[in-house]
C-alpha cells in the first residue's frame, strides 16, 4: 500500500504543478514509511521538502499556501504527532471555508499514518479518527487496500475540501496485484467487500482485513457475514450501510480505537436511529478497550481478532 500511495503522490505532483509535499522527513529520506520515496529527487526541493519539526507549523503554513492556490499534502509522522496541530486543524482547516462564506477554499490533505498492530512503542499506534470525524468541516477517509489507497489519495488531493487522510500503518506492506493508475469508487461511497446474509460487519482501515478473516471463519460455522468497508468516515454512507442492515438485520462495527465516545458509537447510533425497526438485535461495537493503546507485548490482547468478533456475535440472542 505504501507503494500505491507513493504512486498517487507522484502522479498528482506530475499532473498539477500546484501540488506540493512537505513535512518531517518526507524529503531525501522518503518518509519513515517510505510513502514519499523518490519524490524529492524527482520533483526537486521546490515541490517536495523537509520542513522544520513542528506540526502546528506544518499545518499552519499549509493553510497559507492553500489560500494562495497551492494544494499542499502534508504528513504527520504518526497519529499522536498530529496533536500539536490540533488547533490549526480544528479552528482553521475545518472552519475557513465556512467562516469566509465560501470565499476561501482550502484544498489541502493531511496524511496521518494511523492505528496499531505494528509493535510500535507508546504514541505510535493511536487511532485519532474520532477527534476528526467530530469536527464539522473536515472530510475523513481511510483506505484499506492498495487500489483504494491510490485512487482515494488522488481524489483527496483533487478535493476542494480539506481531507484528513488516514493510512493504516499495518496495511503499508499489504500487496495486491493492482495495475496503476486505478480508479475505484468515489471516496464518499462505502463498499460491500464481501456479501453475506446474516450479519453486517462495518469496518474501515485496518479492521477491514480482520472483518474479512472473520467472515471466512464464520462461513465455517455456516454464518454468512457481509463486510462493508466504509472508506469514508465523514461523510458516512447511510445508503450502503442501511441497505445491508435492512437485509441482515444485525450489525457490528469494528475499530481499533478505544470504544468510549469512539467512531463506532456514531455508526451504532445513526444506523439504529434509521433502521431501528429492521434490527433484530442491538448493534455491537467490537473495538479497542477504554485504555491507552498498549505496549507491543500486550497489543494482541487489545486488538479485535476474528475470534473475539465471532464470540461477540454469539452473545446476541439468535432465534433457532
Amino acid at each position, binding site marked *: 500500500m505504501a507503494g500505491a500511495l507513493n504512486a498517487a503522490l507522484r502522479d498528482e505532483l506530475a499532473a498539477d504543478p500546484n501540488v506540493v509535499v512537505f513535512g518531517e522527513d518526507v524529503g531525501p529520506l522518503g518518509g519513515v514509511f517510505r510513502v514519499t520515496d523518490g519524490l524529492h529527487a524527482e520533483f526537486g526541493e521546490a515541490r517536495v521538502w523537509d520542513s522544520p519539526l513542528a506540526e502546528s507549523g506544518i499545518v499552519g503554513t499549509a493553510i497559507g499556501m492553500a489560500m494562495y492556490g497551492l494544494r499542499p499534502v502534508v504528513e504527520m509522522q504518526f497519529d499522536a504527532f498530529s496533536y500539536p496541530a490540533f488547533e490549526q486543524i480544528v479552528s482553521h482547516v475545518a472552519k475557513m471555508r465556512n467562516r469566509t462564506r465560501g470565499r476561501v477554499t482550502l484544498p489541502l490533505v493531511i496524511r496521518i499514518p494511523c492505528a496499531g498492530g505494528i509493535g510500535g512503542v507508546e504514541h505510535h499506534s493511536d487511532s485519532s479518527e474520532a477527534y476528526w470525524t467530530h469536527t*464539522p468541516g473536515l472530510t475523513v477517509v481511510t483506505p484499506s487496500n492498495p487500489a483504494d489507497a491510490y485512487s482515494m489519495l488522488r481524489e483527496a488531493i483533487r478535493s476542494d475540501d480539506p481531507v484528513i487522510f488516514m493510512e493504516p500503518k499495518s496495511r503499508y506492506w499489504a500487496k495486491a496485484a493492482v495495475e496503476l493508475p486505478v480508479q475505484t469508487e468515489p471516496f464518499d461511497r462505502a463498499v460491500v467487500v464481501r456479501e453475506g446474509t446474516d450479519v453486517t460487519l462495518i469496518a474501515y482501515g485496518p479492521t477491514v482485513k480482520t472483518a474479512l478473516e472473520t467472515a471466512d471463519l464464520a462461513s465455517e460455522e455456516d454464518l454468512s457475514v457481509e463486510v462493508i468497508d466504509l472508506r469514508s468516515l465523514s461523510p458516512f454512507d447511510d445508503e450502503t450501510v442501511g441497505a445491508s442492515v435492512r437485509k441482515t438485520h444485525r450489525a457490528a462495527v469494528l475499530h481499533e480505537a478505544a470504544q468510549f465516545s469512539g467512531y463506532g458509537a456514531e455508526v451504532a447510533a445513526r444506523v439504529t436511529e434509521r433502521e431501528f425497526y429492521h434490527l433484530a438485535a442491538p448493534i455491537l461495537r467490537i473495538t479497542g478497550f477504554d485504555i491507552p493503546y498498549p505496549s507491543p507485548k500486550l497489543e494482541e490482547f487489545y486488538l479485535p481478532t476474528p475470534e473475539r468478533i465471532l464470540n461477540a456475535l454469539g452473545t446476541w440472542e439468535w432465534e433457532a
Partner: protein
Amino acid sequence: MRFNPALTSVFGRKMVPMSLNVETRAPVVLPDPEPLRLIDDTGRAVPVKRRQGFELPSDERLLELYRAMVVARRWDTQVTALTRQGRLATYPSALGQEATEIGSVLALEKTDWLFPTYRDSIALMTRGINPVEILSGFRGDWHSGWDPHAHRTSTQSTPLATQALHAVGMGMAAKLRGDSVATLTFVGDGATSEGDTHEAFNFAGVWQTPTVFIIQNNQFAISVPLAKQTRARTLADRAIGYGVPGYYVDGNDAAAVHAIVTAALDRARSGDGPTIIECVTYRIEAHTNSDDPSRYRSSSDVTEWKSRDPLERLEKYLVSQKMLTDAVRESINTDAEKMAELTRDEMNAEVSHDPMELFENVYAAERPGLREQRDFLAAEIAAEAAAAVGSGVAS
C-alpha cells in the same frame, strides 16, 4: 504555475551539519535597545544619526498617514460608541495604537497580503474594506464579512498567533511561484508567548519567506502586563534566535513604523527574507467592551500614555512643516465624519439573516447528512411560521 527558477534550492543555505564553525550560519545583529524614532514625542524630527539608517518619510506621505490615523481614530471611537449602544456583540478597540496599525498597513502594496487579528479593525478599514464587512463578525452576523481574495486580507484571527503561520505559508507559496508578494501579520505581545509565534518565526527564518511580523506590543494581554509574558529585554530580541533581522520601534511614531515596515516589505519582496518588528504602544481602551481595566491598571498609567498620543505627535510635526493648513484639517475631518456616518448608518440598518446559510459552505462537496439537517431546520421554521399564522401571532 510558474516556479521561480532561482529556487533549485529553495532554502538558499548550504547544509553544514558537520561544522562547529558558527560563521556558516546567519550573523547576529542585536536589535538596537533604543527604540527607533524618527519623530520624537514633542513632534520634532530625530537627528539623522539616531535614525538607525532609516529615512523620514516625505511630508506628503506623513500627511497621508496623519489623515488615515485621524479617520481611523474617529471610526474606532464611533464603533466603540455603537458597541456601548448594543449594536455590536463585542469590539476590541485599537485607540492609541493608530501609528502602528496605520503606519504598517499603508506600507503594503495592493498585491501584498495582510493577516490581521481581532485588534486590527482600523487597519482593515484603512486597507479599504467596507466598515460593515469588517464589523459583521463583531455584530454577530457571520464570522467574517469580506472576501479575503478581493482585499488580499485574511480573516481577523481570534485563536492567538495562529495567523502568523498562515502568513508564512502564503509567503512561501508566493516565493515558490516566483511572485513578488509580501505577507504582513500582526501579533500581540501576549500572543508572542504562544508556540505558534515561535513556529512562525522559525519557519519564516528557515524558509526565508517574504514575511513581515509586527509584534504589536500594547503592553497588555487582556489584564496581563508584558512583564509576565517575557523576561527578555525586548520582544524584538527574539529575532536573534531565528537568524532574522529584528527591530525595536516606537509604536506611537507613525513615521518610524512606516519607514521600517516599508523597508522590511521591500526586503521581503526582493527575496531577502522575513523581518520581526516590535512596535511599542499602549492599549488606551479596555481589552473589549466587556473588560474592566480598573481591576488591573491605574488610570494614571493611561493618562501618561495619552500624553504620548501618536496623532498629536504627528500633528505637531506636520504643523511645524506647515503641511496642516485649515483647509487640510477640514478635509480630513470631513473624511473622518463621513466614515463615521457611513458606519453608523450601516450598523443601524436592519440586517436579515438567513438561517439556511448555516449549512452552506461547511463543505465544497454536497453532503446528504447535512442536507437532511438543513431540511429539518427549514421544516421547523416553516411549521413555526404556519403555527404563528394559525394562532394569529403574526399578521
